[in-house]
């Protein structure tokens, strides 16, 4: 339970860049897993993969929901709401937890498109194999590789634009 909580919370945090949202989403993930436990089949490739898949679906739903909010708020603010939330809603203790470079990478991650973001998170932060990512995202392996590749390049460019020099 503790291990799964930690993993799910980390995926949610890296995707949203916000502690409070990550907490809410983690709870939603466990609630959905609890309710749909009967639909789990080992064909999904393990419980952890299935859980990650549920997490990913909820994150995409959350992204779409906040995107609608973002469009509504765009008249007042030129910057996307998610990015603002990512930078302003983060608590000081969260910032202290992340290093300076890590926090910059976290900000850059939230600027990626959701498809590329989830691919990079699963591959480079969760250290999943291509097969696991393929089952989680339910896309062909070629697509997974392509998204990871594009995500990395895009992330490196965003960091460059932010003036961040990777080590």
């Amino acid at each position, binding site marked *: 339970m503790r291990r799964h909580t*930690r993993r799910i919370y*980390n995926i949610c945090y890296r995707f949203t860049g916000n502690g409070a949202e990550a*907490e809410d989403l*983690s709870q939603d993930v466990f609630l959905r897993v609890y309710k749909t436990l009967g639909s789990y089949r080992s064909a999904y490739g393990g419980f952890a993969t299935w859980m990650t898949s549920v997490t990913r679906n909820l994150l995409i739903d959350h992204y779409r929901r906040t995107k609608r909010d973002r469009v509504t708020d765009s008249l007042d603010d030129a910057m996307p709401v998610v990015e603002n939330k990512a930078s302003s809603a983060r608590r000081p203790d969260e910032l202290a937890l992340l290093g300076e470079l890590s926090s910059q990478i976290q900000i850059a991650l939230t600027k990626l498109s959701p498809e590329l973001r989830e691919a990079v998170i699963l591959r480079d932060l969760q250290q999943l194999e291509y097969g696991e990512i393929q089952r989680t995202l339910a896309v062909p392996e070629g697509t997974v590789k392509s998204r990871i590749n594009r995500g990395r390049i895009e*992330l490196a460019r965003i960091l460059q634009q932010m003036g961040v020099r990777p*080590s």
Partner: protein
Amino acid sequence: MSSLPNWTHEEIEARLTDYLEGLLQPEEQRAFDAHISTCAQCEPLLASVSHLLTDLHSMDEIEPPPRLIYAILDKTLGPRETVTGWRAAFAWLRALANPRVGYGFASVAATFLILLSTSPGFSWRKPHLADLKPATIYRNADQRVHLVYARGTKFVSDLRVVYEIQSRLSQDDQQIPAQDRNRQQPPLKDPGQTDGTNPSSPKQQNRANGIDTNLQMLAADLPLFFERRIR
């Protein structure tokens, strides 16, 4: 030697991850290297992506807040029951129904009984409340300790005397054979003599003579017994 295919910037970008993860074929690897070594656009990109990967892999996991697990449990299994009023005052009694609490009480009681039975001055047959006073227990324990110490001291001193006597006797035994080497063996054994040597002291000689006399008197009083034994 075949000429290497010229890769475009787009091709290099598309195969960047394959290159970094070592998934390119040898031919592709050479073409990639050839392009990177001469391209001012792709070389920095490769370096920055490579460094980014190092940074991403070294990023620590975030520790979720402790309340998250309880929140998840509340959300999935329902909120925990909160007891109010007079039931809350006696809620702690429920904990006593736990078998662990029972074991704990039993072990404490057993420890107390063992301590009581081994405590000095307390008798189960004639229990007195005064015997359980700490001052009485201390006095009795002190008395017992002193007694044990005195006995121990006496035992050690006794042992010392015995060892001293034994060591002196063994010294005498070592000296006597050396002295007797030059002596001539006597022709006849004296009464009480067992090892072919004279008794070491007159007292021992007298004792041996006395035993011999007693045996002779006993043989005179009980002739039948001695005859049977001889047969």
